[in-house]
């Protein structure tokens, strides 16, 4: 009984507040920009088509700069989850030049690939390592991952043929819809593979660039996620002549990788 009598008392001021009952306010001091309306496509796009269109477009680029802002979820033994952030600036020139600046508050590190060798440089510790690389970016990324445990986030989209890495083992492909990612209209796609559920946001327009990648790693207990925003795309950068070649600073020391060092030591001890 009491509640019913109170209802108008609650509703009336609420209606007034949301402007239903009041006349339009005085004119705005600054003109409001017309809202951007991007009309929805008449036919729902096929997710595999959108993905392959992006791959084709990335294949067509011979050089670019992109920033990757990655957030990785770590699950502690206590099941507490922490996020680890990382910012990387990637410069790439096909078929065999790559430079990655892993930023951090302690100076970060840099990865160079000049077509013949790769180098890893950590300015804070004043150390670097160099080793022979493979003839192409793709093979070098594989080499770095398999032999040196250096993983480049979103490497899949950097390779010559992104299709070959992305479009495999897909058991379910979904076109979710369109949405703004950092102000850019994007297609939102979702895929499932036996080990990974992943989503990608691809720019809707003349430049179908990947703008965000999110994956849920089902092969790891607790299914941690990795999300990477791809920002600051520059499709026409000019690189200085020796931009991809590492020249060690005078005070930098060349050090081995752990596995190499361990492989060498017994031999030394035997001498």
């Amino acid at each position, binding site marked *: 009984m009491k509640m019913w009598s109170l209802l108008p008392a609650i509703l009336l001021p609420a209606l007034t507040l949301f402007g239903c009952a009041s006349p339009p306010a005085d004119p705005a001091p600054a003109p409001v920009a017309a809202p951007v309306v991007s009309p929805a496509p008449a036919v729902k796009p096929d997710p595999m088509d959108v993905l392959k269109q992006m791959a084709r477009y990335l294949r067509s680029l011979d050089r670019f700069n992109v920033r990757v802002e*990655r957030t*990785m*979820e*770590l*699950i*502690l*033994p206590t099941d507490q989850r*922490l996020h*680890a*952030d*990382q910012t990387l600036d990637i410069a790439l020139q096909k078929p065999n030049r790559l430079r990655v600046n*892993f*930023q*951090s*508050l*302690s100076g*970060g590190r840099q990865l160079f690939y000049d077509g013949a060798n790769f180098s*890893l440089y950590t300015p804070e*510790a004043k*150390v670097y*390592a160099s080793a022979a690389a493979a003839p192409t970016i793709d093979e070098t990324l*594989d080499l770095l*991952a*398999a032999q*040196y*445990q*250096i*993983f*480049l*986030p*979103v*490497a*899949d989209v950097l390779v010559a043929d992104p299709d070959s*890495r*992305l479009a*495999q*083992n897909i058991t379910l492909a979904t076109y979710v819809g369109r949405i703004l990612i950092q102000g850019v209209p994007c297609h939102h796609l979702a895929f499932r*593979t036996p*080990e*990974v559920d*992943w989503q990608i946001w691809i720019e809707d327009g003349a430049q179908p660039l990947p703008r965000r*990648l999110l*994956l849920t*790693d089902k*092969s*790891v*207990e*607790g*299914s*941690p*996620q*990795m999300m990477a925003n791809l920002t600051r795309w520059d499709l026409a950068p000019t690189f200085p002549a020796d931009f991809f070649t590492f020249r060690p600073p005078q005070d930098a*020391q060349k*050090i*081995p*990788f*752990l596995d190499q*060092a*361990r492989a060498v*030591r017994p031999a030394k001890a035997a001498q």
Partner: protein
Amino acid sequence: MYSSCWTCLKRALTVALILGPMLAMVSVDVEARGGRGGGGGARYAGHGGGRGGHEVRAPRANVGGGHDYHRGNVNHRDVNVNRDVNINRNVDVDVDRHWGYPVGAAAVAVGTAVAVGAIVSTLPSNCTAVVVDGVTYQSCGGAYYAPRYDGPNVVYEVVPAPSGWNQ
């Protein structure tokens, strides 16, 4: 009222009976490993990937292709000893100084004897640089540390006293 509390007590006792031995087992595991090397610490002893392991779990960095290239060395990492936590892959974490961060090699406690082969991500204090045959070692409290790359991260491995030094 009385009977429900009695049920509570019985439940608590049952839980204690189950949990007690489990906790004891965990602490034994930690102790058994604590004496080993410089890092010591708890490392999951069971089969990889099991629940409740002392490992930090991280996702892969890539969707990946058919040839599983980003997974090749996961188990390889598991056999590395002398870490405070066992990571299910070589996690690339750019945290400033790793204060309280559970990822990375162990720090060596002051006054702890360190075994050759131990890996640390942070050097003890009061180290002096020693150059032998063009290689810079850090001499800290009688142990020698050599910088290495472990994946993309710089770590320090405890090495035998470099030959040529102190001879």
